[in-house]
């Protein structure tokens, strides 16, 4: 009954060898360009984030045929809009030109809109603000969600004064709550205990090594490749579709098709309310550094294009972010809702058959960022605060 064969074709050898081969393949693929495994930069940038930021440090991702997250989510080949995407990160794992010696004069923190998902480096909000605001150089400390702690550190490190911390908040996400100083992680608490109440000198190196090990074990290029293969098989009917795509196809008033993310509708139905205590504390912390906080409310695609859709699945309110804006304003927090400007921009672009959000992606396109950055620049000037700030010389 029991097989006594001992050759290469025995399952007791073949099966473990196949598992080992998969491991080796996975390890080996780390040495190939990420573009092979991913359809856009975001998927390549998130794993192996071994520094402070959410992205792999010193990443240079260049894909001439990137396409949008929604066309991927919907697994719709015909919906893809191919574009070049160049995504570079600095040593800290944020999206800034590596080795940029020009001093930074302003900091932007936000989510994927702030990062510039599905945009090339030169089209991101921080770089467009650089071009619009003379003498300014914006550090992009955006990540998957705003990194205020790190943004404050950058302000300190760069000696930025009389300037702004721009906080970009996407409508899709809930506002942060709680204290602005997050509780210490177990890891850090343990280190402080070992260091007799102070953080030991070896902690940054140990924490970095731990982060690197965790990133190495959780990153799987083979997983990405197989997922692409499975989606391809689903697309061609070889495999059944795994899950509902959560993406809707909408038609604009000029007949142009567009993909939209269903979760955005929920954010419109049940809008998140800002925790004013949080923003007051954050503003106080920013002011302590000699700067000002500006909250920029970033509308979702449905909020911008709802009035321009033939049959929107929901009656989109005239001002979907108005409640959040007025709440923040009542708490003396400088706030700018980009919805009116982007709606205007979307309507006028549509007359020329153009879009300001990618048709196949959740995010804005270079034209949309242009509209947004002009509005932000105008608002900053209207605030009347000095925009001629120069970083203080740090010794």
């Amino acid at each position, binding site marked *: *009954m*029991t*097989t*006594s*064969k*001992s050759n290469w*074709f*025995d*399952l*007791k050898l*073949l*099966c*473990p060898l*196949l*598992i080992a081969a*998969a*491991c080796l393949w*996975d390890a080996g693929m780390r040495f190939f360009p990420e573009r092979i495994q991913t359809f856009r930069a975001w998927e390549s940038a998130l794993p192996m984030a071994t520094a402070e930021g959410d992205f792999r440090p010193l990443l240079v991702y260049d894909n001439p045929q990137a396409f949008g997250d929604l066309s991927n989510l919907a697994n719709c080949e015909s919906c893809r809009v191919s574009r070049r995407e160049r995504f570079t990160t600095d040593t800290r794992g944020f999206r800034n030109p590596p080795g940029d010696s020009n001093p930074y004069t302003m900091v932007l923190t936000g989510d994927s809109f702030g990062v510039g998902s599905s945009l090339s480096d030169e089209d991101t909000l921080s770089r467009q603000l650089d071009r619009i605001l003379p003498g300014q150089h914006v550090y992009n400390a955006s990540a998957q969600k705003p990194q205020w702690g790190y943004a404050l550190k950058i302000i300190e490190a760069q000696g930025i004064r009389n300037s702004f911390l721009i906080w970009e908040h996407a409508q899709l996400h809930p506002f942060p709550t709680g204290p602005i100083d997050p509780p210490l992680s177990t890891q850090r608490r343990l280190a402080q205990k070992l260091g007799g109440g102070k953080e030991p000198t070896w902690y940054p190196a140990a924490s970095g090594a731990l982060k690197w090990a965790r990133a190495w074990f959780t990153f*799987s290029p*083979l*997983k990405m*490749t*197989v*997922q692409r*293969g*499975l989606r391809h098989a689903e697309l061609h*009917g070889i*495999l*059944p*579709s*795994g*899950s*509902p795509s959560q993406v809707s196809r909408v038609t604009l008033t000029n007949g142009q098709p567009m993909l939209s993310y269903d979760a955005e509708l929920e954010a419109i139905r049940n809008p998140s309310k800002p925790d004013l205590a949080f923003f007051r504390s954050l503003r106080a912390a920013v002011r302590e550094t000699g700067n000002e906080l500006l909250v920029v409310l970033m509308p979702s695609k449905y909020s911008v294009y709802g009035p321009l859709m033939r049959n929107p699945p929901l009656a989109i309110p005239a001002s979907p972010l108005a409640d959040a804006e007025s709440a923040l304003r009542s708490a003396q927090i400088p706030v700018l809702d980009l919805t009116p400007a982007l709606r205007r921009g979307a309507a006028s672009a549509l007359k020329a058959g153009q879009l300001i959000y990618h048709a196949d992606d959740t995010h804005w396109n270079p034209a949309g960022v242009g509209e947004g950055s002009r509005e932000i620049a105008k608002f900053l000037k209207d605030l009347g605060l000095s925009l001629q700030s120069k970083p203080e010389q740090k010794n």
Partner: protein
Amino acid sequence: MLFNSVGFLVLFLPITYFVFWHLTTRSQRYVWLTLTGYLFYSFWSVKFCALMALSTAVSYIAGLGFLKWDDDPYRRKLCLIIPVTFDLLLLAVFKYANFTLSNFESLSQALGWQLAVPHYDIVLPVGISFYTFHTITYIVDCHRRVITPTRDVFEFSCYVSLFSQLVAGPIVRFREIEKDLEHIGHPDRDGLLGRGWSMFAIGMIKKVLIADTIATIIDPALRDWRALDTPGAWLCSLGYAYQLYFDFSGYSDMAVGLGMMFGLRLPQNFNSPYQALGIGDFWRRWHISLSSVLRDYLYIPLGGNRFGEFQTHRNLIVTMLLGGLWHGAGWTFIVWGGYHGALLSVERLLGKRTLLPAQFQKAGTFLLILIGWVFFRAENFEMAWGILGRMFVNFHIGTAIPSAATLVPMLLIAGGFSHFGPNTFQLKHDWDVRQSLGWAVLFAVCVLIVYGGKPSPFLYFQF
């Protein structure tokens, strides 16, 4: 941690395997398997490990009690009652407390009482139904003197927490594995290895390629069950019947295969159940380890068939009702159990008076089982009656369920194997080169799917 996860395949299994075979003594191997069992279990929750350790400790101590008070019937009775009560209490609290309270609340409202019945946020520890049955069968067998209790705490903890059968069985009785545990220190690594890998690979193929593919299509369709037409309802019911069989028997094959890699022979849990000639025959083939436990530890102690026809029918129905309840704290499970109890009872009344050819008996049995699975799968009675109504009463043809074109060939393959093919235990597992390569290709596809996707839990984990 799941057998069909990357962590298990590339880290847990190789490390557990190589360390195990590098250890030389029986005690070392007991300790190692205990530790790995707890590590395996801790991936669900570390807190649950404490529960399992407690259940293990109580039963182990009771076992020592049986050894100490061999001639003292009173104390032996205590050694039986205390651990069994403890295990049943664990089940009652973690599995049935909220169900009981919510039923009590409904009843009190129906009677017009205004009682404030509390509800607790209790998480069901995965596998609790299985390891408590391991310890209960151990204690009862000790009391019945079927086995001699072990003095080796690690042998016992290794038996309870053995990772391959920890969370979804088979429900291994100590007596079934005792000999292999005694000889666990043997140096023959290759003895069962080939068969073990073969069982594991086939189990994985059953789970990942067949059960999960069917689930991908029928789960969304069943979520929207009101939209099902008659063919859709039939396809979903058949799909679930095959999904459940390939999922659970796939898991059992993997568990048995893993046991063999460590020199432990776990019992067969499925013996081509969809080829059964009747409901009694089905229960001798489906989840054999559970049905034999229910028979030996519930049906027979209730009196079995020894006290006349009425009591026999009563015992059958009570056993199956409790068997249904074991699967989940819900009325649909109880009805499913009661339905099988009633079928067994009717089958007993009819006796062996059947003139139908075997293939018709098999088809009829499968149809009855299929109806039962509708209750087993349904989230509530509305869903169950709705689907049965579409299948048997309200015939209509509407929109086909998505991916029906993929589902139909999958059902034909799954049905072909389960109705006409041999089961994994009937295979010789002595493959020639071509067969080995065929299995290896399918296994490689499974490994890639496991790599690429989120591992899908086995259906029986929820019980």
